[in-house]
């Protein structure tokens, strides 16, 4: 019967179709499974470390973190009353825990911690396949680098929020916060490991150009020690940096923050960016970090005109007869820079007319064809001048003489040398040297009890509140603090 044949054909078709059990078993396109990373390939071992530097650039330099870090010291303010008005309020110690930027800051730094935690796990996976002692040493050095960057993220978190959670693993479900002191101990452990295992070289000598080294770890540890009033330890750590004789202050303060000063011998940590020396195509940069604080420029692309330097600071610096440091640190609307760039005055006179000169890259230094404000420049994070001034202060606070390191900084700034410097003189020097750098001034005021001079300041607004968005969704954040 003819029909039977048709039935058989149809049946076969259907069986044929259903027989493919493998039909549905395909991998998702364009996603690399974690287990497919070849951990036996030791030559790739730097990849997870490089990933942490990327997170420092993409997360740690989010533009909103920057004003939150620097607006509370009376010398620097948001600069704009007509945009991100809460930044003005924050500068006046009127916090709003629901501010998105606060949550961004929290998340970005913890994002860095998570990437670092993940990188350490990956490094351990590589370590299982290591056979030679030299590779073992490299592995430890890489772990040290990751730990420096992790400690850096915690350092910023404690500076901003005080008591924060230690995230020992990325899977941790109990997010109870630890006391600031406990977090500092945790950071110091990481840094000690790095000091012991990372190369003792300048970042610009590092195997990976500009990477964090043992000296970076020493400086960060010294900063923490100084905050804790542990002056002997701070002195020892900075002595080690100074006595290495590897570092020197960059003689041209004006260019220190510009293209010529990128990763000079003064640098201990920078967030590196590049345009690859090309006039077009991709840049790998810190997104809006420079643009955010770019003034309105007449002859070149400016920025969002945030970050103002207060008259109070400028008057104070002028009274000190500061020259090169003032010129470098402050750009004034209606003037022309020494590189010939014309700074416009803003129409809205309630906004700032003075901007952060340390974020200024002259048009003459841009790679031809590039127009973005700050293109190809690095963000300076830690520098040798800090080590010198910490050294001086630690000595003075222990009753020793701190003149030598102190005057190196003075001399470079073309300021007359002083003798028998006092702690207050050092604090003033720090105020001048580090204006608009990472909230150094605010930290100095808080750790020395001078913050009470700031209008609106009190001990209970020293730190920002934990972002409301976190508190509302994570009950353990409201637990009693733990000291571990």
């Amino acid at each position, binding site marked *: 019967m003819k029909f039977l044949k048709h039935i058989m054909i149809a049946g076969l078709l259907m069986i044929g179709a259903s027989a493919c059990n493998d039909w549905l078993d395909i991998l998702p396109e364009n996603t690399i499974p974690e287990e497919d990373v070849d951990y036996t390939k030791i030559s790739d071992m730097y990849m997870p470390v490089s990933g942490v530097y990327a997170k420092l650039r993409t997360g740690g330099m989010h533009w909103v973190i920057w004003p939150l870090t620097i607006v509370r010291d009376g010398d620097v303010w948001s600069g704009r009353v007509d945009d991100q008005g809460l930044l003005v309020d924050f500068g006046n110690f009127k916090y709003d825990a629901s501010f998105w930027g606060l949550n961004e800051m929290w998340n970005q730094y913890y994002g860095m911690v998570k990437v670092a935690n993940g990188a350490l796990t990956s490094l351990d996976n590589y370590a299982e396949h290591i056979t030679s002692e030299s590779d073992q040493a490299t592995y430890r050095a890489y772990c040290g680098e990751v730990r420096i960057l992790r400690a850096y993220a915690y350092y910023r978190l404690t500076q901003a929020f005080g008591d924060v959670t230690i995230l020992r693993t990325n899977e941790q479900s109990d997010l109870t916060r630890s006391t600031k002191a406990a977090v500092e101990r945790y950071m110091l452990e990481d840094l000690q490991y790095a000091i012991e295992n990372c190369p003792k070289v300048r970042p610009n000598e590092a195997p990976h150009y500009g990477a964090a080294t043992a000296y970076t770890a020493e400086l960060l540890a010294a900063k923490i020690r100084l905050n804790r009033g542990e002056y002997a330890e701070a002195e020892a750590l900075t002595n080690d940096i100074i006595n290495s004789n590897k570092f020197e202050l960059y003689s041209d303060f004006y260019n220190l923050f510009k293209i010529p000063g990128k990763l000079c011998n003064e640098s201990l940590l920078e967030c590196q960016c590049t345009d690859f020396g090309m006039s077009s195509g991709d840049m790998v940069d810190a997104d809006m970090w420079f643009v955010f604080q770019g003034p309105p420029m007449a002859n070149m692309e400016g920025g969002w005109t945030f970050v103002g330097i207060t008259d109070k600071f400028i008057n104070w610096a002028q009274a000190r007869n500061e020259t090169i440091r003032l010129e470098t640190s402050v750009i004034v609307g209606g003037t022309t820079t020494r590189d010939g760039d014309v700074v416009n005055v803003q129409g809205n006179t309630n906004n700032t007319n003075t901007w952060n000169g340390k974020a200024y890259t002259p048009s003459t230094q841009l790679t031809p064809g590039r127009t973005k404000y700050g293109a190809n420049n690095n963000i300076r994070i830690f520098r040798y001048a800090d080590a010198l001034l910490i050294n001086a202060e630690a000595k003075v606070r222990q009753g020793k003489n701190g003149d030598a390191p102190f005057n190196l900084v003075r001399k470079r700034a073309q300021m007359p040398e002083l003798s028998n410097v006092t702690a207050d003189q050092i604090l003033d020097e720090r105020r001048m040297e580090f204006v608009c750098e990472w909230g150094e001034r605010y930290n100095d005021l808080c750790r020395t009890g001078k913050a009470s001079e700031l209008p609106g300041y009190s001990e209970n607004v020293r730190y920002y509140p934990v972002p409301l968005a976190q508190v509302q*969704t*994570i009950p353990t954040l409201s637990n009693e603090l733990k000291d571990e």
Partner: protein
Amino acid sequence: MEKRILTLLLVVACTIFGMHARVVKGTVVDQVNEPVIGANVLVNGTIMAVTDFDGNFEIANVPDGATLKFTFMGMKAVEMKAGDFMNVQMEDDVRNLDEVVVIGYGSAQAKDLTAPITVVKGEQLLATPSASPMAAMQGKVAGVNVVNSGTPGEGPKVNIRGNGSFTGGSPLYVVDGMFYDNIDFLNANDIEDMSVLKDASAAAIYGVRAANGVVLITTKHGNKNQAAKITYNGYVGIQKATNVLPMANSSEYATMLMEANYDAYNSFMKASIDRFGGSYANSDFHQWTYGSDTDWYGELLRTAMITDHSLSITGGGEKATYSLGINYLHQDGVMDVNNYYNRLNFRAALDYEATNWLKVGFNGVFSKGTQRTPNNAAWQQAFNAPGIYPVFDEKNTTSLPVHYASPESVGFSNNFYNPVATANYNNSKNEVNKYLTNFYAQITFIPSKLNFKTSYAYDFTSVRNRTYTPEYYVSANQNVSKSSISKGESSYNNWIWDNVLTYKENFGDHNLGVMLGHSMREDRYHYLYGIGYGIVEGDEAFQYINSSQESDSRKADDGGTRYRSNSYFGRINYDYLGKYLLMFTFRADGTSKYQETWGYYPSIGAAWVMSKEAFMEDQHAIDYWKWRASWGRLGNNAVPASDGFSSVSTGVGSSGVFGNATIAGFQNNSHFTYLKWEVVDETNIGFEMATLRNRLSLDVDWFYRMTKKAVIAPRLPFENDVLMQNIGKILNTGVDVSINWADRVGDHFKYNIGANFSYIHNEVKDLAGNPFIAGGKTYQFVGEKMNSFYGYQVEGIYQTEAECAADPTAVANGLKPGDFKYKDLNGDGIVDGDDRTTLGSYLPNFIYGFNLGFQWKNLDFMLTTYGNAGGKMYNRKRALRYAQYNYNFDQDQVKNRWTGAGSTNKYPSAEGWIRTWNVSDQRVNDFFVEDASFFRIQNVTLGYTFRNIKMGSYTLPALRLSATADRPLTLFSANAFTPELNDPEGWDTEVYPLTATYTFGVTIDF
């Protein structure tokens, strides 16, 4: 399909049993003896002919004693024994119970359905001059919410019976067996009919794809024994912007800002007057005058053309039927630059009975569209730009190549642009080529009982984009120093292979139907993108990436997805005397998209035709009454695929910079998604009835749809990332009602009135213990509508200093009279983040449409309306002022501002508009939440038909002229360009004007 098979069986039967056959001719007329044009003539359930312009038909080989059935939309079917010449008279009927309805993998007669399925004929869509057929569906079907878009070539968003997924998702469109997410490539002229499967029992046969509803589209096919029918259908018209939001003029703008803060803002106004004229001599700045008063919307808008031409040929003989069509559409955009959409569609369908047991067929739609896209950023910039600088400024010699005015000329820096320059320095084009093909073969094993059909549908879509950016300079913030060309190629290769076995049997009064099927599917998507800089301006012919003068800057990127599925499905339907109906369906869907491969989707439906019961027989009040009830389970795989494993991120974003190079890096993503499809369970109970001599029909359906395992992404602790999980539960429940009345007055006046409306209650039922889940724009709270706005409730405006001084919140925040006073909801005496609450959601509660039509002799008229109510929208356009205080204002803000104690208790003062307390992303409040309800006259069409026009020896059967006003009037209260938002969460950032279209159309039957 079934019909054709039966024809074939008939032929077989004739041969086997040696019955006599003869030629049957006849004429079909309506109750006033006017010919019925296009009535179907069925022999044993298969369309064998269609009446012509005189109502005539002719069929060869009709077996002796056969019964002929005549059907026509809007008329009651007539069955008659075959005669040599048949005079058939049909009567009006508002219910089309004999209409053949396409259902999943088959078809059924309307009277046999147990589920609410609404059929829309292609002709019903023709009145709307739109590039997308779904745009014409607005207001036509109860429970279907259509949100249109203003950009040429962009289709509408469609929701069927509410929104049951946090991830959105459109209905499944099945075009001749092929699955689509939208049907924007089709022309209404290509469409025979659309079946909207609203409830779960009808849709469940489509399993994991069905949760957002299913729309089945059949493209046009020919009919047997039909002489070639040649039709031209075309229109030409204009589109005009309507409801353009009135913006502040220069003087109003200046008044607001200088009232807000004279010192901060007077310099901009003076700069404008100095450069572009006017006067600030008067000491009262309210009296200043401005030489530049640019109406940016006026500058950007134009009246745009739309035209559409279709030609189709349809016919068939004894063995083969065919349908061919060609269509061309051109639509200009209303932005006054070169932007348009055009589309050329070809369509062909051929069905052929190769032997008495084999039937084969092919159909294809070839669509070639070109979309020259406007730079819609210009609308946004026009919304923000004040009038105090002009379009052109000959003094601005730095601007090149055209001397556009720069916002810098009045002192503005970033965030201000010249919108006309933005619109013009834009050259972007998409070319979309789409090929939809379907081949099938159908084998009959037992005539009229058992057959098998295998069909293969294949869709290839290619989208080519090219964007050229020229070098230009307007201002420091609006310039391109290096020209570039970017090109993208996306391709979609999708196919479906369906095998379906159908069996029918009658046991006396019991009728049984069984369908079994298997389907395999693969969807592949791939894109390749490249960009090069330094491209010479001029002709497209030499603008290639490899002509880039900086070869090192060239960049490429690619990506893609591939999903497969494998499905088994079946349906059993049973009825007793056509009175008690039962239907079961089942589908097992396997998909590669999720770790859990297989999902199972059953459904059950029952109906009872009460009017066939003996106790109803003696009454005449009710002509027809059917109850129906159903339950079904559906899946939604529109949720993203899961990673399934921890993965690593690589690339530049995960690589550190070391000197002038990056070192390849990676970052571990320690968390990963383990997702599965969402599950929707729906119960539907309803009835349909006809009364008053079949003139009034009423359909009522109550539905209860619960989405389980809804995918939602709670924020991960300490991260901006979210992790999607199947943890939500969403309820949509409501009622769909449609009511239609059709009648005649005298012999020549026919009219119909109809209404449809839906009420939907939407509620988030569960979030797995999360108190709420915050999204970027809206929040989810258990017990509230999904996508609720969340913020402060405005109690009023602080009127006096004394009032501020007495309020601790005002003191703590330094508030002034003219600022918002927020409600202290938790009563702790101070307003802070804990005083926020839900403020409504964009989802409407009511969707409704009314329509009215009449026909008087050769004149026809149709009016449709559409509206919805109950939704809220967030006026983000206003709220965005937080980012730039001196953006322009809309006029409502200016006219109603607080100007002193007692002036208003609703609007803030001019100064209030530049204070963070009132305007900020941190201060979402219900002042910005506006009513999204609207009512629209959707379409008004007036037509006149000339019949039998003698042109020498040739008689033109019909020529219809028509005039249409599409969307001529939209009423709403929101301070918006349109309440139809692109954003499903209801953030109104919409700055495109709506358009009304007025067309003149011609339809010619040759």
